[in-house]
């Protein structure tokens, strides 16, 4: 969902860079005030619902919140104590590793399957358009709905997946996809791949459509078709779109919460706990909002690294 938004953002930002125009001092200042009035509600909203939370979260991470804080209003300043507590907890390294595995696994799966399908749908065949649009459905469903459905499919005793595998004779007893500490993370990654495929197909397909047919015609004259055409024409031409898809995918996947909470709630035995789910649990289950804020800020920092990467990729793409 947010990924949709993000995909549009880089466009918007890069498009406007040249909009500055010549500065004309003193040019109808009343007009300018008027113009800003159109923008004011949106700016106010962004400040209140994105700017304020970030600043407030930084402040909270240096304060000690307890269940009593919400009655007394007292949250003493404790310096870096929350960060120390959070980072020295044994759960921190688990969460960090899980976040890395979850993100890397999801992105790799979504991208490879998404690219495969995008290339496939580039062929011309009947019903192409309608089939491609139906493919979007998993992306549009509420994430919590997808989690509920998959929980039922992956159920150990009566789930469709185990029933299917049993009927094929591949397994004899149900596999505890979501209840085994060794399998749960892989299962959650699998579900997240399923959710992310439509987005990857959509954006990559858009990128593929922009590669001029003449390039393929020229390549085929040189004897490059099939895989060689992909390697020497498709891939180099698609590179800018690929960078955008991957970086946006990472930033989006890092903060995934709904799917994990819906499928496993971080369990079993914290085997699917990520930085994001830990931040939620600390704040809203343990009511240690200071520690939750500290965990959230660590997540922001990680996202920021990728955001900077994204902006650099984006700028390079513009320069080209």
């Amino acid at each position, binding site marked *: 969902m947010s990924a949709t938004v993000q995909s549009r953002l880089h*466009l918007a*930002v890069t498009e406007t860079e040249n909009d500055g125009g010549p500065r004309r001092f003193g040019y109808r200042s009343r007009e300018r005030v008027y113009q800003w009035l*159109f923008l004011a509600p949106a700016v106010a909203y962004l400040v209140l619902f994105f700017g304020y939370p970030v600043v407030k979260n930084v402040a909270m991470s240096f304060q000690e919140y307890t269940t009593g804080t919400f009655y007394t209003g007292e949250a003493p300043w404790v310096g870096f104590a929350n960060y120390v507590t959070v980072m020295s907890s044994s759960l921190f390294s688990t969460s960090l590793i899980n976040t890395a595995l979850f993100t890397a696994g999801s992105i790799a799966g979504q991208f490879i399957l998404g690219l495969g399908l995008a290339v496939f749908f580039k062929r011309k065949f009947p019903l192409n358009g309608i089939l491609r649009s139906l493919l979007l459905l998993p992306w549009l469903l509420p994430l919590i709905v997808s989690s509920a459905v998959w929980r039922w499919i992956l159920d150990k005793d009566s789930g*469709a997946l185990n029933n299917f595998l049993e009927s094929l004779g591949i397994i004899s007893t149900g596999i505890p996809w979501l209840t085994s500490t060794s399998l749960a993370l892989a299962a959650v990654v699998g579900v997240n791949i399923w959710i992310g495929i439509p987005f990857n197909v959509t954006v990559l397909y858009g990128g593929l459509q922009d590669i001029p047919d003449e390039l393929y015609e020229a390549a085929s004259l040189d004897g490059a078709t099939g895989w060689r055409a992909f390697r020497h024409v498709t891939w180099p031409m698609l590179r800018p779109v690929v960078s955008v898809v991957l970086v946006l995918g990472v930033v989006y996947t890092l903060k995934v919460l709904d799917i994990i909470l819906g499928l496993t709630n971080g369990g079993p035995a914290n085997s699917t706990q990520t930085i994001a789910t830990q931040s939620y649990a600390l704040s809203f289950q343990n009511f240690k909002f200071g520690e939750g804020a500290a965990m959230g800020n660590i997540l922001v920092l990680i996202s920021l690294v990728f955001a900077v990467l994204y902006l650099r990729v984006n700028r390079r793409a513009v320069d080209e």
Partner: protein
Amino acid sequence: MTTNTQTDTVAAATSRRNRPGPLKAVHGQWGTRQWGTTALAILFLAVMLFPVYWMINASLQPNGTTLQTSWLPLSPDFTGYATAISQQGRNLGTSLVVALGSVVFSLAVAAPAAYALAYFKVRGAGVVLFAILISQMIPGIVVANALYTAYNDLGLLNSIPGLILADSSHGIPFAILIIRAFMNNMPASVIEAAKVDGAGHLRAFWSIVLPLSRNALITAGLFTFLFTWSDFLFALTLTTTDDVRPVTLGIFQYMGAYVNDWSSVMATAVLASIPAIILLLAAQKYVAAGTTGGAVK
């Protein structure tokens, strides 16, 4: 990346717009090979959409202790739906009110901003767009964490206005961008003509630009509805009682409490999926119309 690539990425992300290419085959020209490809595509789609089928199938199974759900709903049983509506009907209503409220609020905030960003060479417009970009990188849990304390002080927890405001954070950035992209494609001459006729900004915006942007507004509204309807994070963190409970949270708690009664959970899931299915069918039309609809006539 070229502007061309970018706008197409946008269009592709919302519409499955088919490019009118020179190779567009006329009906009847498809050969066996093309239909073979179609069969393969249907197979891929069947695998991808199996969970959706399974949700509908499971929602039509009788309640009870059957260990294995049958592969086809041969004798559909609607008890699951009856339970779902009696237990989650109120939550579905809450979701509907919050989503509609968020659509109105988001469009009211986003449309003027999009107009300003599309037509005025405001200094700082780049900063606003950059802020929108950065806003998307902020994890929802960070926003929720801070909003919880603020909402607690303001008495906005467990309130419909509180949820509408928070949920609009999904819709407003998206709406600004999609409406602005549409307005960018609208010729400036349309506005200038209005100005020549003596219309001020407000009138030009209200009586010329907004009606012409109808398709972009509908598209932005539909997606905002879907984002808000699907919201789980703010429902989970900013409500603490049963009074105001969106259906996403209802499903989440259902899964914990009624895990043996999957047909009701799945029936609720089907009901919660209806907006997505409608959007898939309806938005196509509007987005396609939006990309080709002409303002100059």
